[in-house]
């Protein structure tokens, strides 16, 4: 019985993976229909991110040493993780930020008619072109400043993947409120902005109350600041707690979505997929 369950789970996992891969290929193909736009957006995003690092370089030159306990290299590390994590989230799950619109216009119908996971299909059905620039930028920072540092790369990969999941979950949870409130697009935008701000500045510039939010309601600190701490001094319990916290948050966001889905009222707006 146990082995049958395992076979079933593996089959289901393989099916999800096949659908996920198919969505990714289609998204990329759709994006490449407009090649010029793709390259301009990706390059533009990398350039925009560079201006922030230039600002940090000036700030560290003026102040020197460290800012709120972070060195310039530490800031580069959290920027690399944030940029890559956010980029991965929006390359793979860009549709999460359209969730409010999908609910309000009744476009969720199309996903609910299919025998796949509604959440997986909704999340994967769109990509962001500029996000490729975010990922490239994060990788370039790591190559330039941490090229031969295996430890930095390990925690960078851990952080980027965890942030991609957590950022998606935060946005998902915020937009899911639309099932209850009618339109949570503003909350969704706000949550995404807070999530980004909590990721790209040294943790200690925020007061204790905000830091509590950074580890609970909008827990991007788990994926950005904790990996930096682990890079400086590894403790297995911290790593496990970060991993467990990230997984728990994502599962809770998914459960919240499915609970909200029961209240879905559909609609008859005329819509097409792009």
């Amino acid at each position, binding site marked *: 019985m146990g082995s049958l369950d395992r076979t079933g789970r593996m089959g289901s996992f393989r099916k999800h993976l096949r*659908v996920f891969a198919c969505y990714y290929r*289609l998204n990329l193909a759709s994006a490449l229909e407009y090649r010029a736009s793709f390259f301009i957006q990706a390059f533009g995003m990398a350039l925009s991110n560079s201006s922030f690092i230039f600002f940090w370089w000036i700030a560290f030159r003026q102040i020197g040493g460290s800012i709120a306990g972070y060195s310039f290299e530490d800031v580069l590390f959290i920027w690399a993780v944030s940029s890559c994590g956010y980029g991965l989230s929006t390359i793979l799950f860009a549709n999460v930020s359209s969730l409010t619109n999908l609910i309000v216009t009744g476009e969720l119908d199309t996903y609910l008619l299919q025998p796949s996971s509604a959440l997986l299909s909704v999340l994967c059905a769109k990509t962001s072109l500029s996000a490729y620039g975010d990922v490239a930028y994060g990788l370039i920072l790591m190559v330039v400043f941490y090229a031969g540092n295996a430890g930095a790369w390990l925690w960078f990969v851990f952080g980027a993947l965890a942030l991609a999941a957590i950022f998606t979950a935060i946005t998902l949870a915020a937009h899911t409120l639309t099932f209850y409130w009618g339109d949570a697009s503003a909350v969704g935008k706000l949550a995404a902005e807070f999530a980004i701000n909590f990721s790209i500045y040294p943790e200690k510039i925020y007061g204790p109350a905000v830091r509590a939010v950074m580890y609970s309601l909008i827990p991007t600190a788990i994926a950005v600041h904790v990996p930096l701490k682990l890079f400086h001094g590894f403790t297995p319990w911290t790593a496990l707690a970060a991993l467990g916290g990230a997984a728990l948050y994502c599962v809770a966001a998914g459960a919240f979505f499915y609970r909200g889905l029961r209240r879905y009222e559909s609609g008859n707006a005329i819509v097409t997929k792009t």
Partner: protein
Amino acid sequence: MPVIETRGLTKTYRAKVKGEGLGASVRALVRPQWKRVEAVRGVSLSVEPGEIVAFIGPNGAGKSTFIKMLCGILNPSGGELSVLGMDPTRDRRKLSMRVGAVFGQKSQLWLHLPALDSFTLLAAIYELSDAQRKRKVGELSEIFGLGEFIQTPVRKLSLGQRVRCEVAASLLHDPELLFLDEPTIGLDVVVKQAIRGLIIQRNRERGTTVFLTSHDPSDIENLCRRAVVIDHGGLVMDCPVERLQAAAGVSGSGASMEDTIAAIFRKGAAT
């Protein structure tokens, strides 16, 4: 065993009531008022395998809401519901494997990509192997005449070509039951006839049960043997299509199907 069986199926919504102007908007913000809307009111219906049923009613009658409950998209507020022996609310994903749907207002095709790419995604979703996908796409392409434009981005297709692709997409997994919600909306006469021919062919060759909503009287005349009329969320008529005139009280008047349906709707509105 019936393909579709509902007993006292009901769907109610809570809708916000707001007066006109800014003042009313501010009042609604502080003290919102709600009213209960009964979109579907105790509908009992049974559809046998292989039937082609016209499900008709004026705009806002509750047709789409009813179909969405049958597909598992919406949860009923009351009553009992069984589709292909399953409860759509509980078994939505399992049921989807055996059901196809075309909602005229919503597309399952990717606008910027050829329909062929959308078929590939749907094949993955419906768990078809590569060999099955190729065979099914080839077969549907031939039946629906998609060959010329299957590799053209959907945004560049005419409406008729697009609807042919939509219907083909809904049949990729060989559904036993097909929900068609206004599939011929906006199409020219020739394409409408082609789509109808394909639906009939499917029904005859595979025994596919078809549950169709349409505002086009020709769809009802040419496709369906049975008509179910719904108005204000309630069932008002369920009879063979050839008895619609008598039921509407216009038999012997030489009324067209359009006139007959209009008479039924007017009767419904008056009651």
